[in-house]
């Protein structure tokens, strides 16, 4: 029996949460469709000139906003970096997706073995895996750079993918092993009696049952890679390999930057994650809930 909730309080807190989480997104959306001269002029109403998509046009086609074509306009405010956003989105997509795929390919079987089987050194390796994220990333930048340089992977997407995979792997293994451990042991014993070897037990029984949690961890790995900055910056080369986090940083570092343009870039960078969350997260939550209720 659920207790009745005060609808007013519920609404209030829900609004606060939406405002806290969604506020910045909405701000950047508004900022991106209002030209600079209005954004920076306190005396004019925000939408007094209607919506303007000039900055979006610039990002995708390179055509300068009309106001910057006028004489004496400070064209330095229009950063070239903004033109790299579409390519960097693609780069980030490739990197994050590959890192997610590798994470699941390596992490899911590893998590299963950690959760279900005893083997020598299990505790030690698991501890090592779980504690490894505690090492500060800054301390690892140089050694990893040297290693990747030796492999000839500096300035390539493959290098970034490898590092991102390694960074997310401890979380993937930890989260998935918890899920695998929660599954009733008898199902796996039944599989053993049904002539399944370990691989078959994993692929035919464990994996289908873990799909929702695998979706969730996959999304997590994707996000981790998508938003990672330090290694991306150090390891990426020219614009062709640069992920979106690096481009965004370059854009924001410019103190004179057009606010409208910056907001445009920010909003474009947020969109893929929003889409992913809406598409994947709902499926994941439904899966988790139905599993929890039906047992």
């Amino acid at each position, binding site marked *: 029996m659920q207790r009745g909730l005060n609808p007013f309080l519920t609404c209030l807190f829900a609004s606060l949460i939406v405002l806290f989480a969604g506020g910045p997104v909405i701000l950047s959306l508004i900022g991106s469709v209002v030209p600079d001269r209005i954004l920076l002029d306190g005396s004019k109403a925000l939408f007094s000139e209607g919506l303007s998509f000039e900055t979006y046009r610039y990002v995708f086609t390179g055509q300068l906003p009309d106001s910057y074509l006028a004489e004496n306009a400070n064209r330095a405010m229009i950063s070239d970096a903004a033109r790299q956003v579409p390519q960097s989105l693609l780069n980030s997509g490739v990197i994050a997706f590959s890192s997610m795929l590798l994470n699941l390919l390596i992490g899911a079987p590893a998590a299963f073995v950690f959760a279900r089987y005893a083997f020598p050194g299990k505790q030690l390796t698991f501890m090592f895996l779980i504690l490894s994220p505690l090492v500060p990333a800054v301390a690892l930048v140089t050694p990893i750079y040297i290693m990747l340089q030796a492999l000839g992977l500096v300035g390539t997407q493959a290098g970034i993918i490898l590092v991102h995979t390694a960074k997310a792997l401890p979380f993937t293994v930890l989260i998935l092993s918890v899920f695998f451990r929660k599954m*009733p042991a*008898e*199902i796996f*014993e*039944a*599989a*053993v*009696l*049904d*002539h*399944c070897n370990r691989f*078959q037990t994993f692929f*035919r*029984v464990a994996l*289908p*049952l873990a799909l929702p949690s695998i979706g969730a961890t996959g999304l997590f790995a994707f996000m981790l890679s998508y938003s990672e900055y330090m290694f991306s910056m150090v390891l990426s080369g020219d614009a062709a390999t640069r992920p979106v986090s690096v481009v965004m940083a370059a854009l924001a570092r410019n103190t004179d930057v057009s606010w409208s343009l910056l907001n445009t870039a920010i909003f474009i960078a947020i969109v893929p994650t929003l889409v992913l969350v809406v598409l994947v997260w709902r499926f994941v939550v439904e899966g988790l809930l139905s599993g929890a209720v*039906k047992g």
Partner: protein
Amino acid sequence: MASVELRNVAKSFGRVEAVRDVSLVIADRELVVFVGPSGCGKSTLMRMIAGLEEITSGELLIGGKPMKSVAAADRGIAMVFQSYALYPHMTVAENMSFALKMMGTAKADIDSKVAEAAGVLQIEDLLARKPKELSGGQRQRVAIGRAIVRKPDVFLFDEPLSNLDAGLRAQMRVEIARLHEQLRTTMIYVTHDQVEAMTLADRIVVINRGKVEQIGSPLELYEKPANRFVAGFLGQPKMNFIPAIATHSEAGTTLTTASSGRTVLRLGGRVSIADGLEIELGVRPDAISISGPLDELAVPGRIVVVEHLGGSSLLYVEVDGLDQLLTVEQRGKANFAKGQAIHLLFDPAQSHLFDGAGNRIRSGR
């Protein structure tokens, strides 16, 4: 079709001895029930037979062949788990055919076997459903169906009915008995429910603290329990135990209660126990009758609680000098009231004597 033989089988988890030195021969086509309180090692014993648990020491033979290096899947056994352990992502038909598919059986062959098993269990109309769309009883049938499909030499049931409600449990119990008739396969059945054990078993193995207490047919165990544990574990309601002292004379043995010295039983012949030593007298609730106060052996008492079960009544009687209430079962619609004073008479033919260590001295006259 196969026999199962255990030779001095033991299992320890670290320092904990879960199963100690169990030797047992289960004949082909026999239905043997392992029964005991929870944590007694009965499930571990079954899991060792299944190959899910390694045997620490001793030998296991199925069909006369040692199983030491035989994988669980190749032992010719099928197991029905307590939680059913159906694969939630597969339909009933897929659940039942999974093992055959893994063994590489031909599709047509699989279909006919699944259909046959579904027919036996009357679940033909459920084949396309997922486990979560089934009721507890239906899931149980599917779990049994999954075992039948494989045509195993030995069926293992691990507390299969404990998740069902009482009515369904009684029904499934009958069905399992029927199934055993029909399939004529060796079956090993683990339960903590002594009613299931008594009703299903050809032979019962009573296990306590990892050790076999007694092996025998249900009636054998009921009438001649080897020790106090078996006597107390089997039978519902439970046997009454009364501390007593035996005195020998020409005519036989007289038992007096240890607390009050009242004579409660006379047995013919000599009981092999020293005079004056404290022993325990075990009497089942249905072996106690109500007598008039004039009977020399009548024990006076007072009814504390009456439970009317319809066809019979259970009386819980307080007797001077006994810590525990005596349970008395009375057939028919007798009229008893709380607080009523009555006299009890123990039936010597259905009495059991246990020595200080709990071992049986004798049962009956």
